[in-house]
């Protein structure tokens, strides 16, 4: 097991709310995690769990209004990003903290060549001449495994395949050697054989540059193969935070267990898949207690009354579930589930 102990990013009780006509949506509702130098942290969850809003919040890219970071702190190398001015943030984005998005076609400018866009990112943060920046852009394209980079640098995004566009995005994100790379579903739009190439590439580049990576994904297989630690999100909260391998051998939270069981397996036959009953609660109408309680087979009265805290259950595992607290045994009232 690799040891990571130098903290680079520390998120404490982050809250991002959206104020809309329909009410207040607590998209990210008090989450805390740390990222160490050189490690990969996976954030998994289904749609609406708040994983993408978390990543946008880290770079203060939440559109306001309707969104607003209403509380908490984001410590990057000891300094709170939430107190920075917009100008200071701009010098951090793409330079010290970079991001890759799911859809490379919509995040690349269609009228500039791949090389120009990378060179622009380099020139924004480094004092380099046009020619030098261009050469560096070509070097970056070579580094991310694009064949004949001199030629490809002159091409526009529509002339590149999906996998190649994602490589261009990675080249751009890593051009300034950031300390943190946030990858939001970087391979979701790609075919599996291309996904394997891109994940391999991110892993190698991470090793070479010592970059810390936050990988946001809905794919548990991707987490298993690329991450060191993982945070499982549900309805705006982290429900389980542990080592990536641990989550598959010893999942704790009922939601994590449900999620793993509902995956169709490649390595064994199942007649029927175990499902999680019901659906994710509406963000405008969250349950009073644990937000998973209405779908949880183990829920007791306490689960419906109060929100459980994220608590340690082992040296590197934290779970937010009443089952792992002393109060659990005292609550004898098992709720009858109707219509689940």
């Amino acid at each position, binding site marked *: 097991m690799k040891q990571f102990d130098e903290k680079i990013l520390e998120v404490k009780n982050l809250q991002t709310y959206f104020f809309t006509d329909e009410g207040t949506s607590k998209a990210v509702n008090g989450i805390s995690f740390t990222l160490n130098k050189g490690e990969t942290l996976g954030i998994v969850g289904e*749609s609406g769990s708040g994983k993408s809003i978390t990543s946008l919040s880290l770079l203060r890219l939440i559109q306001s209004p309707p969104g607003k970071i209403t509380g908490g702190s984001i410590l990057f190398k000891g300094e709170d990003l939430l107190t920075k001015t917009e100008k200071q943030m701009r010098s951090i984005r793409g330079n010290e903290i970079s991001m890759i998005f799911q859809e490379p076609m919509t995040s690349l400018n269609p009228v500039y060549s791949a090389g120009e866009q990378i060179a622009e990112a380099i020139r924004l943060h480094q004092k380099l001449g046009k020619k030098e920046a261009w050469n560096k852009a070509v070097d970056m394209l070579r580094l991310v495994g694009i064949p004949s980079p001199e030629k490809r640098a002159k091409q526009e995004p529509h002339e590149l395949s999906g996998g190649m566009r994602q490589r261009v995005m990675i080249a751009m994100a890593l051009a300034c050697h950031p300390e943190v790379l946030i990858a939001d579903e970087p391979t979701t739009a790609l075919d599996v054989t291309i996904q394997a190439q891109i*994940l391999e590439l991110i892993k190698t580049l991470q090793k070479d540059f010592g970059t810390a990576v936050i990988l946001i994904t809905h794919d548990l297989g991707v987490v298993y193969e690329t991450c060191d630690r993982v945070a499982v999100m549900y309805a705006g909260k982290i429900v389980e935070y542990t080592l990536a391998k641990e989550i598959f051998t010893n999942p704790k939270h009922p939601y994590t267990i449900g999620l793993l069981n509902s995956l169709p397996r490649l390595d064994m036959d199942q007649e*029927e898949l175990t499902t999680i009953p019901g659906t994710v609660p509406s963000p405008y109408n969250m349950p009073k207690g644990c937000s998973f309680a209405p779908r949880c087979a183990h829920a007791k009265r306490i689960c419906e009354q109060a929100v459980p805290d994220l608590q340690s259950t082992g040296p590197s595992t934290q779970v937010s579930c009443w089952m792992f607290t002393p109060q659990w045994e005292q609550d004898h009232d098992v709720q009858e589930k109707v219509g689940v």
Partner: protein
Amino acid sequence: MGVSVEEKKVLLKVDQLKQYFPIKGGFFGRTINHVKAVDDITFHIYQGETLSIVGESGCGKSTTGRAILRLDEPTGGSIHFQEKDLLSLGKKEMRKTRKDLQVIFQDPFASLNPRQTIGQILGEALAIQNVVPKENRKSRIEELLGHVGLRPESMERYPHEFSGGQRQRIGIARALAVDPKLIICDEAVSALDVSIQAQVLNLLKSLQRKFDLTFLFISHDLGVVRHISDRVMVMYLGKIVEIADKKSIFEQPQHPYTRALLSAIPVPNPVQERERILLTGDVPSPIDPPNGCRFHTRCPFVMDICKTQVPELKRSAQNHQVACHIVS
């Protein structure tokens, strides 16, 4: 499933199917070239089974589904459904036959009319095929909603009031409305979250048993395919590279492409350490596919013969066909 060899009845037979899409260009909008989306494929589907087509984007799996329904007019080949040649049918007869051939699409947001209530959407399907007399339609719709696990009150509501999983259930109810024999599921669960996906997969399986349905299941997700299929067909760049029983394709894949595809999927299994075959490069353009075997540009085991001669789909084992020079 559980059907012995003698009892197996072929429901759909596809012979040398070709689907080329013209590329217009030049001064007078002439056809300058073709995208060979599906290029000479032959296969069949047995009554009551689930055949899956897997492959990456651009391999022709969706085009095959659309060609069977004649949503695109195939360029060549023949499609027989219960001995009936679909490609020779007139417009009117084809519409009648579509009663037996239904489809469920990937995007439940785009495939339901936002201005119709669920009752109207399902009622329209019943009216077009005229399978149920007018006065019984309401009760039939209620029954259909029950089959897919939705409440009868849903009838009065509009698509936007439903979640993605519920909308996909409505799409399934619409396909079921006319008592079809074959349902083509084109990436039917790909847009759903895993917990919802599991619910819909279980529903499809139970409906198949209940109504003796045959599925042509098109998907890029091999985990889902393994769960739902009886047989699996792997496509690459418009060609079939391998067809086999589920068990043999997952346990003894023979074509190098199938093997690479299987090894590329990240599996959350700590016990099973696998060796990954990392393919290099991208899928070539279907406008000008490589000569010989279409996979030869990325194949780790490429030989000289692969570059010139197209490998035929040949039987390599019981219920297993492969198109590869190495295997034959």
